[in-house]
């Protein structure tokens, strides 16, 4: 078992409230899983991912990576965010990846450059390797972020709705590319999304969270999962009120 999340309750403070984001959530991620956390907005799925990333600690329960509790952010759990500004604007595509590899002390500069180029080729951005992020399209920026994360060869890749801000065509293309990359290296990824089709397409296993605060509704195999059934599971309580929730 690579990652164990055991009865994790997360709370965060806003200006005048203490909000419970998730309540006693448990799940296990195995090596080479494409583990998707699926839930409606406000189910605390991003907060959960940040907790795995080490950016906040649970008020109850624990998160174990290879048996050791997660305490702070670290290069063994690399994040890919939804926001396009996750690339350092003052560094070129190559430098962004080299920065990650050298700042974390993983590689010396020369080897870092070689590995950066290797992963830039993998995401098909070789001709843009000397470009600054601001000249790239949204999809290209996300590809650089993915290349940067993969180059780190982390224990687990944490993806927080990485394709949510892309247009539908690019999004579908990126899902395909991610699966191809996975076929090549079989990395472990924890993927957060609110889109049922994306969860089924990208994931190998899907964790369903209820809304506000997030609690585990179900954990299912993605292969053969039925979108209508998932929707039913996710929105059971709302169905009585007749409010059809759109995802």
């Amino acid at each position: 078992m690579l990652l164990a999340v055991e009865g994790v309750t997360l709370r965060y403070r806003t200006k005048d409230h203490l909000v419970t984001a998730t309540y006693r959530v448990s799940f296990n991620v195995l090596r080479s899983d494409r583990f998707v956390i699926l839930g409606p907005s406000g189910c605390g799925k991003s907060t959960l991912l940040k907790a795995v990333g080490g950016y906040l600690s649970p008020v109850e329960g624990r998160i174990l990576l290879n048996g050791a509790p997660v305490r702070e952010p670290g290069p063994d759990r690399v994040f890919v965010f939804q926001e396009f500004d996750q690339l350092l604007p003052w560094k070129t595509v190559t430098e962004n990846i080299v920065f990650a590899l050298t700042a974390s002390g993983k590689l010396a500069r020369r080897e870092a450059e070689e590995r950066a180029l290797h992963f830039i080729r993998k995401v098909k951005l070789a001709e843009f390797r000397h470009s600054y992020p601001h000249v790239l399209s949204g999809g290209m920026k996300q590809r650089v972020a993915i290349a940067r994360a993969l180059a780190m060869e982390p224990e687990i890749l944490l993806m927080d709705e990485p394709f949510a801000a892309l247009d539908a065509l690019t999004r579908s293309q990126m899902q395909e590319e991610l699966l191809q990359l996975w076929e090549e290296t079989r990395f472990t990824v924890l993927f957060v999304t609110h889109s049922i089709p994306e969860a089924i397409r990208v994931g190998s296993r899907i964790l369903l969270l209820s809304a506000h605060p997030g609690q585990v509704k179900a954990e299912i195999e993605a292969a053969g999962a039925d979108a209508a059934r998932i929707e039913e599971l996710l929105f059971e309580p709302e169905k009585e009120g007749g409010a059809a929730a759109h995802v």
Partner: protein
Amino acid sequence: MSERPDVYHSISTTTFDIVEKPLSRWRKVADHAAARKIALLAGLAVVWELYARWLANPLVLPRFSETVAAGAAAVISGELPRAAASTIGLLLKGYLAGLVLAALLTALASATRIGADFLETLTAMFNPLPSIALLPLALIWFGLGEASIIFVLIHAVLWAVALNAHAGFRSVSPTLRMVGQNYGLSRAGYIARILIPGAFPSILTGLKVGWAFAWRTLIAAELVFGVSSGSGGLGWYIYEHKNELLIPSVFAGLLTVILFGLLVDNLVFKTIESRTVRRWGMQT
């Protein structure tokens, strides 16, 4: 079902008038901002020359040519370069001291909440206060000399730089901060490699504003009393020649002040800008 049939076209690849065509040389020169500005300056010089000739009163307004001649003579005699060097030396001392203090204050403000309150309160109090208004007080505290001028220069630089740098640090996006933490940077590495570059557009603005404030304050302070060490600066040069009614030299001094301001802005700051924030796409 629609009754309209599907339509397909083949796309032309050869019949455009222009796909890409080099612009004419005149167009390229006109597109060059520096070229346009130099032309404007030349135009202003011509207007000045003509008006001064028409006015024919060199005590009020000397001709452009007289001013340039007086300036050239002062450059050759070494008087003007000496004055400029003295001014610039003093300016750099005050500017650097101001930057160091601004860095300390900003560090304090970034580290603690009370530090931030401290900086914001001080800035709100002192930023609107013209530095030159502190000169009389500085003269009492530090006497007639360099120390007084450096004191007012620090005041001119400090608040503008600290305020902008502080605002810049606060505006670094949460995502970038999380990225910085993700790769296990040390505290110092995090500041040097994430926060400072992330805040650089604001920091640069602060440096520019601080520089302009310092330059004005210094010339004004020198006009009041020069520098006690004997070799006066540009402000003193202007003041002295006014007393001797050498008006072309006064204008030459003023022109030097202007030219130096233009030079620093266009060469130093524009270069930094085009190599950093513009290239990074961080400046809108």
